[in-house]
């Protein structure tokens, strides 16, 4: 492969290179081991401490629950369901409300955000009203929706859509405003129509902002669905939580929270996958390309 004259330095170079990369790998492994040890230790201290303190009655398990009790209650919920039926129905209902709310809310947020970001006049006309609506504690709208639409899934979907909408809307709006002027002039000169500009420039450019907002938005969708269910429902994890609260069963409340946390983490993971796929064009951030 290489000539005789440069064979020696090449050999030498690759030797130190492999040695260096081996050392770097070892250092990385060591760091990861420590990281995970620390993480596990943290969980053990927190959950173990909770368990111990409640066992020793320093903290009253009647009010604060107990990790072992929460775990048992969770399994019990999955095995025997609630008095209203299978726990899976509850989970499914909450999930359905949250996903619908998330879908409608973010779709409306993106469309309106992009439209207003494009149109200065419209943005200036509607701006103050959007600020006012944003200042209203929207969670209270849940009560109105329940009164208006009964205790089916509609009011929950609406509530979570409203919560999601504002998060996504503001990000989409800002994203459109941040579009690079030079790029915009360039595509205009190339003869792009308004629609083509939106499709090829505005939306992809705003997507970074929009997707960042989707992470928070799904959390809001779940909150909307749960609050709706707490206010009045036939099925749903929120209802399970409220029932547990009514029967002074903190383990039941925590069990509901645990399930919701798992759902949100899974959703977060899926959104991250979507983000990677849609934003694959982005240069790797400096932290990702770790320096040795």
């Amino acid at each position, binding site marked *: 492969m290489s000539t005789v004259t440069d064979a020696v330095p090449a050999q030498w170079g690759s030797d130190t290179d492999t040695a260096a990369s081996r050392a770097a790998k070892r250092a990385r492994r060591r760091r990861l081991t420590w990281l995970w040890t620390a993480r596990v230790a943290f969980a053990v201290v927190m959950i173990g401490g909770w368990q111990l303190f409640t066992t020793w009655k320093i903290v009253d398990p009647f009010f604060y629950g107990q990790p072992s009790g929460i775990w048992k209650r969770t399994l019990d919920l999955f095995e025997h369901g609630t008095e209203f039926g299978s726990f899976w129905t509850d989970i499914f209902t909450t999930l359905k409300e949250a996903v619908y709310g998330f879908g409608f809310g973010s779709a409306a947020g993106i469309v309106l955000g992009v439209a207003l970001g494009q149109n200065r006049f419209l943005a200036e006309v509607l701006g103050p009203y959007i600020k006012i609506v944003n200042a209203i504690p929207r969670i209270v709208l849940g009560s109105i929706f329940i009164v208006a639409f009964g205790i089916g899934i509609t009011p929950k979907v609406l509530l979570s859509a409203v919560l999601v909408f504002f998060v996504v809307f503001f990000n989409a709006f800002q994203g459109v405003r941040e579009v*690079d002027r*030079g*790029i915009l*002039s*360039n*595509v*205009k*000169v*190339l*003869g*792009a*129509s308004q629609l*083509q500009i939106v499709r*090829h*420039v505005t939306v*992809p*450019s705003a*997507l970074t902002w929009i997707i960042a907002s989707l992470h928070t938005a799904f959390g809001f969708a779940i909150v909307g669905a749960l609050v709706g269910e707490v206010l009045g429902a036939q099925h749903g994890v929120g209802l399970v939580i409220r029932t547990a609260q009514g029967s002074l069963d903190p383990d039941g409340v925590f069990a509901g929270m645990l399930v919701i946390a798992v759902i949100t983490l899974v959703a977060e993971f899926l959104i991250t996958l979507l983000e990677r796929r849609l*934003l694959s*064009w*982005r*240069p790797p951030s400096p932290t990702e390309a770790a320096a040795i």
Partner: protein
Amino acid sequence: MASGNDLASMPVANFTGREDSRIEVTGLTKRFLTPKGEAFTALRDVTFTVEPGQFCAVVGPTGCGKSTTLGMVSGLDRPSAGSVRVGGREVDGVTEGVSFMFQADALLPWKTVLGNVELGPTFRGVPKKQARALARDWLRRVGLAGFEDHHPHQLSGGMRKRVGMAAALVNEPKILLMDEPFGALDVQTKAIMQTELLGLWEQLRPSVLFITHDLDEAVALADRVVVMTSGPGSVKAVYDVDLPRPRGAVQDLRYEPRFIDIQHRIWDSLREEVERAYARTAGGNA
């Protein structure tokens, strides 16, 4: 030299010659409103002509309204007074058949190299397949075959410029507007890009309006050099550069006596302006 007026003779763009690529800038004036509410004249009564197929460079000190002029020729911006006529027709909105190359890359970072070059034909309604073939062909011409699927951030500055060049030329524009396109490049890359630009320009022969603050660059590339004054911007002098074409490598051209002679002549005129502009900014800061 600044050409006499022969505007009246062409009411409609005709396709017999290349008359439709003549740029006539007449009495162009641009005023802005400052944040304080005062009118600020950036450009006053600028008049010059770029003949069809001519390479015209505009030089001048910083802030003399070079870019403003270009904005109005492209139709992105509107003059406060005066007019720009392209091929005898007054510019009103984005002019057709014009491509623009900016100092900063105007590439879409979320599209691949091929996707970026494809945009021009796509916007003009060329079918997808054909647009793709055209884009591939132009990427080959600028020496970027094999980089079609890269994203702009994966390329060097010089390569991104090539992509920009391919994207500007793929539409086979009759007019090419360039706003310090090579300003941000290192000296070697700049020389290479200039030579390549000349090569590509000779294939298509669009009229070029090339803005730069680098007089060497202007003389090496252009047939005509417009020197502008600053504050407010106006035309100080117009020089015709009669170096023979094809000019070959820009690096070698610099040492030819004819080049040096022309360069000196224009520099004498430009220096005054640069010094004046410098004194003004320095005085303003002190």
